[in-house]
């Protein structure tokens, strides 16, 4: 029997609970709850925490205080009789004359115990001092019954009936928060009472329990069945005491030894609730409460876990979809602007070719050609970048127009946001956590500017790299001088031919000078040859360009261009996901501490609301 264990064996803190771990857990839980996103399930957790936190704080600071034991149970189960027996005299009215018997709670405490911290007025309680050894180091509260007030959800409170003014359950609910331990008294008639079970389930989290079957001399022993019932409600039931309060009071009055059942109960109170044990009970209760809270929190959010995961997946897949659309559009624009590429790379290559007639030829032609394109660059942002212009502030401020010009139609963005808002609704996320399908004006302004900026930076860098790469291919001196040689070859041939004609044909052989007709003809051929070579240079430039463009477009994902357009959904999914992850971690920590807690004859509510909660849901 656990109650008879040597209490000296468990006095050290290390055996009870790791206090530092508990303090850390409470701090972490507080931080965790405060960091909750503006998400309805998290709001519920915060509300719950507001109720739990003061109790945990109290447990951290009021370790040394005596325990308050609330005696609860249905009307007629002999709560007051039991309290009288423990107090060693009639401190509270008991009997069978009227139901309910106890209207106002009665607080029983030893003369030297300070109870100034107990909110007696708020509890509507009366204080009675007692010299009985059983209440020397605990405070006992005879609580009102929960079962004579009209049922919760009772349609009409009929004030003409006496029970219309019965507020016993409301009083009980004001008293129980002050109790550290609950002593649940029941009888054969009441141990399956729905309303009692409901009230106890509501207040049991974090409050160790003693279970007592009263009316032992009249009722059969129902402890086995009661244990089954309690376990089905989620309680751990290490022990149920069986006493007869009337008999115990009579024995006490006539100076007789109490019977075995009552003796056991008193011994258990002394062993489990007094002195060092009180610290342990308070601490264990607090850890149980913390574990209970994390279970509740996880249960409240757990249902949303798949939906939040689905939102994350949705964000990824929709990002890919938008990137796909954007990539296709940009690829088409880049492909469609062959002339611009050619010019860009060609100009760059040519700009570095100096000395030599072919270089001079290219400089002249490109100066002429660039006039047209600079007047009218096409292809929006991409076109402008290809035309050597930079992303201007005007482009950034152009909003949707600039994004659409880039190749991302607003209809597609709205589709994406609409799909994601559906997933968000399923995850319980609505405004203001996430936006609507159509971005609000200020959000849109910021988002589009960032998109244009990122796209501009990415494209500008990409195009620069691509140009540099091409230049390395084409811009090598050997290529340059080969072309110079080819071009100069014709020029030299033409000049040589002219020289031959003049010196050999005219001066030596005396043929008439052919005039400048030949030169005119020759210049046309040189220009044509120059254009042919220019075409060859650009052919070299173009070779492999498609592959390079593909490579450039493939790097779109890394630039996170479309991200700002759905940043709210991504952030919401991320924050909810990581918040729940942290909750899981803290929950495991709390469970570990709770599993380490030392328990004895005291019961506790172990399982979360799923089972016990039926009492709450059934009342709704």
């Amino acid at each position, binding site marked *: 029997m656990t109650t008879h264990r040597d209490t000296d064996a468990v006095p050290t803190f290390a055996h009870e609970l790791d206090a530092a771990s508990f303090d850390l857990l409470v701090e972490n839980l507080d931080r965790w709850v405060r960091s909750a996103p503006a998400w309805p399930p998290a709001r519920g957790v915060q509300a719950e925490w507001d109720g739990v936190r003061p109790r945990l704080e109290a447990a951290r600071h009021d370790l040394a205080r005596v325990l308050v034991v609330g005696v609860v149970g*249905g*009307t*007629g*189960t002999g709560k007051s009789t039991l309290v009288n027996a423990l107090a060693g005299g009639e401190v509270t009215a008991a009997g*069978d*004359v*009227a*139901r*309910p018997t106890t209207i106002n709670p009665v607080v029983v405490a030893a003369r030297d115990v300070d109870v100034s911290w107990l909110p007696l007025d708020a509890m509507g309680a009366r204080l009675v001092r007692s010299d009985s050894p059983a209440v020397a180091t605990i405070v006992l509260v005879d609580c009102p019954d929960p*079962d*004579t*007030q*009209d*049922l919760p959800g*009772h349609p009409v409170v009929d004030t003409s*009936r*006496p*029970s219309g003014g019965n507020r016993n359950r409301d009083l009980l609910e004001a008293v129980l928060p002050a109790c550290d331990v609950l002593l649940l008294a029941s*009888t*054969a*008639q*009441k*141990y*399956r*009472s*729905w*309303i009692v*079970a409901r009230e106890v389930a509501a207040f049991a989290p974090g409050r160790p329990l003693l279970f007592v079957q009263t009316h032992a001399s*009249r009722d*059969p022993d*129902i402890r086995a*069945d009661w244990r089954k*019932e309690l376990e089905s*409600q989620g309680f751990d039931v290490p022990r149920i005491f069986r006493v007869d309060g009337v008999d115990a009071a009579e024995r006490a009055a006539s100076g007789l030894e109490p019977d075995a059942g009552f003796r056991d109960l008193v011994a258990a109170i002394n062993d489990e609730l007094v002195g060092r044990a009180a610290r342990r009970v308070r601490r264990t209760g607090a850890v149980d409460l913390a574990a209970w809270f994390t279970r509740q929190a996880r249960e409240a959010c757990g249902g949303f876990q798949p939906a939040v995961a689905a939102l994350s997946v949705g964000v990824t897949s929709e990002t890919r979809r938008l990137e796909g659309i954007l990539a296709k559009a940009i690829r088409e624009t880049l492909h469609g602007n062959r002339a611009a590429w050619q010019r860009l790379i060609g100009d760059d290559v040519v700009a570095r070719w100096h000395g030599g007639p072919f270089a001079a030829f290219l400089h002249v032609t490109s100066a002429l050609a660039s006039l047209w394109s600079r007047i009218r660059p*096409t292809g929006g942002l991409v076109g402008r970048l290809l035309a050597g212009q930079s992303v201007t502030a005007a482009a950034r401020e152009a909003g949707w127009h600039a994004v659409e010009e880039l190749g991302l*139609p*607003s*209809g*597609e963005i*709205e*589709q994406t*946001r*609409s*799909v994601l*808002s*559906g*997933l968000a*609704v*399923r995850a319980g996320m*609505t405004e203001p956590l996430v936006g*609507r*399908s*159509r971005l609000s004006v200020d959000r849109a302004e910021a988002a589009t500017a960032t998109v244009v900026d990122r796209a501009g930076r990415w494209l500008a860098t990409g195009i620069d790299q691509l140009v540099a790469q091409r230049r390395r291919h084409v811009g090598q001196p050997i290529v340059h001088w080969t072309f110079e040689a080819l071009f100069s070859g014709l020029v030299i041939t033409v000049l040589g031919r002219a020289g031959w004609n003049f010196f050999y044909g005219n001066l030596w052989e005396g043929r008439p000078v052919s005039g400048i007709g030949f030169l005119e003809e020759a210049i046309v051929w040189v220009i044509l040859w120059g254009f042919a070579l220019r075409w060859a240079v650009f052919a070299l430039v173009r070779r492999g360009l498609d592959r390079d463009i593909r490579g450039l477009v493939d790097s779109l994902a890394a630039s996170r261009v479309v991200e700002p357009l759905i940043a709210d959904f991504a952030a919401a999914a991320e924050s909810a996901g990581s918040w729940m992850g942290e909750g899981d971690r803290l929950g495991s920590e709390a469970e570990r501490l709770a599993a380490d807690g030392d328990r004895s004859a005291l019961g506790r509510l172990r399982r979360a609301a799923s089972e016990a909660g039926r*009492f709450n849901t*059934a009342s709704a």
Partner: protein
Amino acid sequence: MDSQTPADAPSFVAWSGGVAELCNVVERLLPVAAALGAADPMPHPWHGALFGKLRPQVSREPLLVAAVCGGTNTGKSLITNTLVGAAISRSVPEAARTVHPVASLARGVAERVDLAELFPGFQPVPWRSDADALDLGAGDVLVWREDPGGTQPPRLVMLDTPDIDGTLRENWHRAELVRHAADVIVAVLTQQKYNDAAVRDFFAQAATAGKTVMVVFNMVDWPRQRERIAGWLGTFTTETGVAPAAVYAVPHDFAAAESGTIVIHPLPELTPDGGSMGLAERLSAGDFDRIKWRAMEGAMRVVIDPATGLSSWLDGIDRAAAGWRDAQHLLEREGRVRVELPAAPRQLVWDEVWRWLEPRRSGIDLMVSAGYRAVGQGVSWMARRVGLARSSAERQEDFAHAELEALKRALADFIDRLDGACRLDARLAAQLGPRLAAADRAAWYADLERRHASLPLVSDGYRSFVRNELDRFAETNPGMVKAVLTGLTVGSVVRPVMTLALFSAGAAAMPAAAGVLHHVLDFGVTVAAPLAGEGAVAVAAQGIRPLIERLFAGWTADRGRILAETLHDVVLGGGVDEIATLASSSSRPEMIRARQLLVELSRESA
């Protein structure tokens, strides 16, 4: 009515016919009320009185049903066994063990009477052992046994019932069903439980329904507590309104309970007639017809009570329907999307008109036109080559893209608005919310894309629409056919705008193109009022303007139709039609008939 018994009441046939019809009408209204989200009638006393009491008994041999009711572990089974004189229901020390009612019938009753009808909501099962009531598994089972001794009065049915306050709430429900069916309630009370709220509630409803109640105080510390009983009874009767026909006490005697030989002491000092007749005798010798009629009358009173009876439920339906009407209006207001489609390639409409004109033109005219067309084609070929113009196919592709974008934007806007409306109205949230939240929205857009892809730029429907319009125009304005072309070239710069609405908002919202809209009006989603042509076709002759407007409006409506179809078929399903049905629930014939019957029945009961 209370001076007459059902047998000699001249209007009984009419009355019972009225009750039967009322039951049928209410049954037809049940799904309507459920869909409206009106209060569930099952927990209301009138429902039990009507279906549990009146309907089973208006049309058959009158039986007197006496039920033993009370809290957990108060000894109901023990008292039933004592009254019946046989162990029909096992009495055990554990609480809440009787989970199914057990009925003791006089011999031959089971053959004559359909027990499933007598006890609606229960599945009757013949008795096998006294453990049946404890463990026949889930479901609302009623165990019955015919009295083996043959001493039970032929019209008396005795029942042991599950508890009314335990943690198994199914038991409460079963006890309530039995209470509805019962004429007499044997209330088993103890000093611990006579003032428990759950117990009070149960018996207060029995009193309201005119049941005859006999009170048995069990587990009395006899005779010490005898004088306490008057006080307990006083509290009980004040709280519940029960006027007990007789009061008894059973001493607390563990040994007697174990052997099933308890004594039920009459308490003549608390019994109104002062008699000391035993409980079993009183039940057997009772004035069956008076008790029965009192119970029926009580049940009818519960049903016709204007504040808590059937009419309050009907009022609830009316209120719910009014709420749905508000929801419908909200949806009508919110679910209205302006769709700005890209300007149609003018060629599309123009080509249709050209096709219509072709056979009506002279040879020279045609030749000149063909010449112009060839030149025009040459010019546009050149323009395309130098990148100044797009080909017709390219332009159509551009248009299709832009149009799909516009439709997608409209769909997104629409879904946003629906989400918003659901946030504003709980009813809409219940009706449309699950659909909006659970659906794969990507599939909605895929559906829109599919419909858009399969819609030809000019549909056959639109083609015949244009022909009809032009034919009609040519008939009335023979000289203005050529002006049509001029008008078209100008008219096509109009940016088509249409409004997509849930529910038809009346003719006002559908101007010019109303004629082409009939094909989408069958849906809850309508396409209304395309074309916003402020001054756009002012240059065209006034006579042509309406025609051009109609031609473009018709084309736009034809395009917008696919969005309406996606909304109706995929996004909303039947949700919107359902809301319209719910909003009009108040005027259903069943509602009107139910109120008429209530008036008739209350007149007869007066």
